[in-house]
Structure formats: structure tokens, C-alpha cells
């Protein structure tokens, strides 16, 4: 341990004497993080929308005698990714930028839907992000799709009312049972009165019977009008105060993941290859420090430096959030947990870098290899898994996706532990796997 500490100190001194390199290692990935975040946000699979079901949507609802899986209609929406959560969590996620909007189903939604006498409303709250307009468009499309499915039931139900008015009898109006005479019977009664010996009564009854006949004719055409005007649900859009895209949780998680990916992979590769280029590996393995120790030291150094860089980024991000009075605030109390996460993230990327360094054997080759392999490794994690299933498997085998998910969970999930522990276990496993591969390949440096 004492020898590893000496090497760590030596590497720290090396980096401290190359401040330009350090600045470049931080600024460059940050710029890429912003660009990638933009691409992900605009070209991602589906915008993430918080779904608040205050009505407790039933799995089936009967409207106009027809059964509907109302919950499924929302949850299977292809336009957006609706994530069910409590109102408080939805408010928090919109505020922090984890969700771009929230969709609330009010308590009286199903009641109004059953009554069929008033359009129930669903409420969409968007943040101030640049995606607000896009989300409203998506939600309009979703509402339209659901309306289309409900339309026929509404029309059939209304036609049932019309038929009741025409023929008479007993039926339900909304949730009220009513018994009506019906236009046909009313007309027949009026025609009977038209034969009354009282001339005034007969004339009036005849006039009314003619009018009822006209109404019957009009009612016959109601069906067509209903088909043309059906639009049972209205979408009400409200603007909420939330984070701009630039300060969203997703961008912060991507910025951390990407910054650490580049810093740690490049640094890990550079550190191990520079030992070879300075021919000091031979001196070290001469009974001072074994190859396994050297690989471990490089990964440890990169993880400590990477965690420092990540922490600095999180602090800067948090300062901007606080100074700007941005809603949601920065979760400062999570910094210790974030630090642990960053150490793991940087260690896993560092192990990848050290492995690449042992494969390339010289610094320039290692840098090229790190860029050639590092960039696809990052990009594969943002490929929608639905469109390319292999991307999911590849993404699981490299640290980037786990790093982003860990950072997002640690920073903004109301209960970060389940996801954080899952991703931490992945990162630890990947670190060990890449470190073992690096150790196995490190003998190539001893030539």
C-alpha cells in the first residue's frame, strides 16, 4: 500500500505540472456533454412525462355500453413515456427536469366520462424547457388518439338517448334513470286530440302534431351530426416554473457521465502507456511493484481524480442552480453519496482506459484507440434500445449507461438507493472485469 501511495503521489505531481492538460480534460468533455445532452433530449425515444392518476383510472370502464381499457389507453401511448407517480413526485421531477411535463387525470375524470354530458379534462403541466411546445404537440396527439377510440362509444350512447326520446320508454341519462313518453307517442296523442270537437283544441293539437313530426325528422339526422362533432376529451395546457433544458437533471447526469468517460479513459490510457514510454515499468516490476499493483494504482488514481473532476462539475452546476434560483434546487445533501458514485464511475472508465493503454502500448496509439472506442461506447448507451436491441446488451457491458443512470438516481430520485445500488454493482463488476483484462494484457508493455 505504501508503494502504491508513492506512485499515486508521483502521478498527482505529474498532472499538477501539466495544468493545461488538466483544463483540457475537463473543458472538452463538458462541451461534448452539452451537445450530446441536446441530441438526446431532442432525438430521444419519447419525452418522459410524469403521469398523475388522481381519478384512479379503472382497467375497464363501460361507456355507451362498450368496454374500454382506459388505463391501457394512456399507458400504451406511443407518443410519450408516461411514468406513473404521486402528485408531489411529479411536481418535483418537473421542477428538476427529470420529467419534461406532468399529465394529471383529475378526480372527476371517470365520473364525467360516464355521464357523457360534459367533456372531462386532463391537465398537462410543462416546464420552461425548450421541449415544452414539443410535449404539448405530443400530448395533443395522444389526446386525439384516445378521443378517436372513445368517439364511437360517445356517439352510440347519445344515439341511445335520441332513440329514447323518439320511441319513449325507460333509460339512463348520465347516471339518472328516466322514463319518457317519446316523440312517436306524443305525436300519436296529439293526432288523437286533433279530432277533438273543440275546434281550438283540435287546431292547436294538429299544429303541435305537425311540429313533433318535424322534430322526429330532425332527430333522425342527429346521428350524422354527432359523428361529425365528437370530441369527448379536452386537453388543458398550463405553464409551470421549472428548469430550463440546460439545467435539467438529465443534462447534469449526462455531463457527469461524459466528462468522466473522457477524463478517465484518456487519463487511464495515458498513465499506463507513459510508464512504458519512460521505460520505468521495468524498474517498477523489478521487485518494487508488480504489474497488478501498477494497474490498480492507475485505476485508483484515475478514480480519485475523476471523482474530483465530477464533484467539481456538480458543485459548479449546483452553484448555477442556486444562484439562478432555479426550481428544484441542487440536492446538496446527496453530495457524499454522489462522491462515492463518482469514484465508482471513474474507476470503471479508468479500468477501460488502462486496458486500452495496455493494448495500444504507446500514448498516441492509446489516445487514438480511446477516442475510436470511447466515442461509440458512449453513443451506444444513448441509442434507443427499442430500435436496436443489440445496443441494450452492448450498453450494459460498458460503463456509460450505468454511470448516467447512477448519477441521475443519486441526484434526483426521491429514493435513490435501489437504482444507485444496482448501478453501483454493475460498475464495480465492470471495473473488476476490465482491470483483470488490463492486468492480463499488461505484460505486453514489458518489452
Amino acid at each position: 500500500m505504501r508503494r502504491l501511495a508513492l506512485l499515486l503521489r508521483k502521478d498527482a505531481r505529474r498532472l499538477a505540472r501539466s495544468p493545461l492538460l488538466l483544463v483540457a480534460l475537463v473543458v472538452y468533455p463538458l462541451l461534448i456533454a452539452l451537445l450530446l445532452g441536446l441530441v438526446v433530449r431532442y432525438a430521444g425515444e419519447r419525452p418522459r412525462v410524469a403521469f398523475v392518476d388522481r381519478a384512479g383510472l379503472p382497467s375497464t370502464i363501460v361507456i355507451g355500453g362498450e368496454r374500454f381499457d382506459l388505463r391501457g389507453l394512456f399507458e400504451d401511448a406511443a407518443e410519450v413515456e408516461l411514468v406513473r407517480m404521486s402528485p408531489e413526485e411529479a411536481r418535483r421531477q418537473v421542477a428538476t427536469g427529470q420529467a419534461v411535463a406532468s399529465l394529471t387525470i383529475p378526480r372527476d375524470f371517470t365520473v364525467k366520462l360516464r355521464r357523457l354530458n360534459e367533456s372531462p379534462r386532463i391537465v398537462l403541466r410543462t416546464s420552461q424547457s425548450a421541449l415544452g411546445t414539443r410535449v404539448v404537440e405530443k400530448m395533443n396527439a395522444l389526446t386525439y388518439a384516445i378521443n378517436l377510440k372513445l368517439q364511437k362509444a360517445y356517439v352510440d350512447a347519445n344515439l341511445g338517448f335520441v332513440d329514447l326520446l323518439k320511441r319513449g320508454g325507460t333509460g339512463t341519462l348520465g347516471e339518472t334513470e328516466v322514463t319518457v313518453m317519446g316523440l312517436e307517442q306524443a305525436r300519436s296523442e296529439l293526432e288523437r286530440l286533433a279530432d277533438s270537437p273543440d275546434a281550438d283544441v283540435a287546431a292547436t293539437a294538429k299544429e303541435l302534431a305537425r311540429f313533433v313530426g318535424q322534430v322526429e325528422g330532425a332527430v333522425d339526422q342527429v346521428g350524422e351530426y354527432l359523428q361529425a362533432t365528437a370530441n369527448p376529451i379536452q386537453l388543458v395546457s398550463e405553464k409551470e416554473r421549472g428548469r430550463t433544458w440546460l439545467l435539467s437533471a438529465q443534462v447534469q447526469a449526462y455531463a457527469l457521465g461524459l466528462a468522466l468517460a473522457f477524463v478517465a479513459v484518456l487519463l487511464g490510457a495515458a498513465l499506463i502507456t507513459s510508464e512504458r514510454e519512460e521505460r520505468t515499468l521495468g524498474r517498477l516490476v523489478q521487485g518494487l511493484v508488480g504489474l497488478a499493483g501498477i494497474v490498480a494504482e492507475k485505476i485508483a488514481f484515475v478514480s480519485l481524480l475523476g471523482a474530483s473532476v465530477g464533484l467539481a462539475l456538480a458543485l459548479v452546476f449546483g452553484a448555477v442552480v442556486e444562484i439562478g434560483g432555479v426550481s428544484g434546487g441542487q440536492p446538496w445533501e446527496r453530495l457524499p453519496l454522489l462522491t462515492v458514485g463518482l469514484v465508482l464511475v471513474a474507476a470503471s472508465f479508468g479500468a477501460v482506459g488502462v486496458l486500452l493503454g495496455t493494448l495500444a502500448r504507446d500514448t498516441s496509439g492509446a489516445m487514438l484507440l480511446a477516442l475510436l472506442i470511447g466515442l461509440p461506447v458512449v453513443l451506444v448507451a444513448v441509442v434507443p434500445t427499442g430500435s436496436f436491441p443489440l445496443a441494450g446488451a452492448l450498453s450494459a457491458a460498458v460503463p456509460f449507461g450505468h454511470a448516467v443512470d447512477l448519477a441521475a438516481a443519486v441526484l434526483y430520485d426521491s429514493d435513490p438507493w435501489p437504482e444507485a445500488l444496482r448501478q453501483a454493482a454493475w460498475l464495480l463488476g465492470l471495473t473488476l472485469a476490465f482491470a483483470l483484462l488490463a492486468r492480463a494484457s499488461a505484460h505486453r508493455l514489458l518489452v
Partner: protein
Amino acid sequence: MAILLVARGVARSYGRNEALAPTDLELRRGEILAVVGPNGAGKSTLLALLAGALPPTRGAILRGSPPPRIGWAPQRPAQYGHLSARENLELFARLAGLDEPGAAADRALERLALPEGAGRAAHLSVGNQQRLNLALGLLGEPQVLLLDEPTASLDLERRRGLWKTLQDHRARGGAVLLSSHSPEEVARLADRVLVLLDGRVVFEGSPAELENAMPELVGGA
């Protein structure tokens, strides 16, 4: 004389290229063994194998009990360019677990007349870099010195100084294995000579015996 280092059938290959054929060698206390041969003969590979800086493809290297401390100065400087000469010496002294790393660095700086300044080793002259490389090899008074063309970049005065250092080391019971292209150096220092050709030992004997065998060796080559 007690044997400090033994090589038994030690060989090293890089892919299909055999840099050193199976080689047997013994290095005894109080002797200087010179390894000579043309460039690419396998001298540096042999020294790196004996130093433990390179794993052999075949064979084994046995060290006495207790194992002697081995100092190694490869042909090209092996040191950290971003550290000063003193920082390099102190770092390797600490890594080697020397009791007083600062004092050991002082002695090494003085012995090879290295600059004391805080300038990085990468900015030193080629000669000074080579001397720092040697100083690292001599650090901590190792019993066995493995020096790969140690005088190649030294001026005459420094060369003579190093020769004196090596002779003193032998007189104290230490062992030296050095590779060299200088007949004068070999004749002046070596007790035994090993000639390598294309990775194979083609001669082993005293400098005088080598002189007699030269016509045959040159003819054979």
C-alpha cells in the same frame, strides 16, 4: 566465490522472433562479467531478464539466499521525465524501502555529479539523463549491478570515474554484469567475457582467452 545470480536456460522470444536462445549463466561475488556482441545480439534482453524487468519465455533465474539487491541501468534512461533528478532518486529509494531515501539520493547525486536543481529530468542533457539512469541503478548500494552500455554517453572523465566505482564495487564483494562495445573497457574491467551473437552465447572466458579466440569468432561471424 559465492554465486549471487544464476540463469538456467533463460530465453526470450517476441512472437516468432527469438531474441535470446536458452542461456546458462552464473554471476559470482567479486567479479565483473562483460557481455559483448553486435547490436541486436540480445545483450539488453539478457540484462533485462536478469534484472527481473522482463519475464523469460523459458527457463528460470535463481537468486541466492537471501536474494541480493539488484541495481539495473538499462541502455536507454528509465526515469520519470516530469520529476527532477532528486525526486526520481528519492521516489525509487522510497519504493525500494531504503532507510534514508533523502541521504541515498544525496549520495547518488554527488557520486555522479548530477545537477541539484529542481529542473525536470526530461530537460536534462542526454549525458546527464544517462548519468541519472546510472545513479538509479546504483541507488542503495545493490550487491549486483546490471549495467547496459553504461559509459556510452559519458565523457572520458566520467567514464573513468564510473570504472573506478565498478572496481570498488567488485573489491567490496559485489558483482557487475555490464554490456559494452568498448574493447578498452572490457579489457580494463572484466574478469570474464560472454560473447552473444544472434541471441546465442558463442564464447565465454577471460578477456585474454577472448583475444585468442577473436580470429575464429570474427571468421565464424
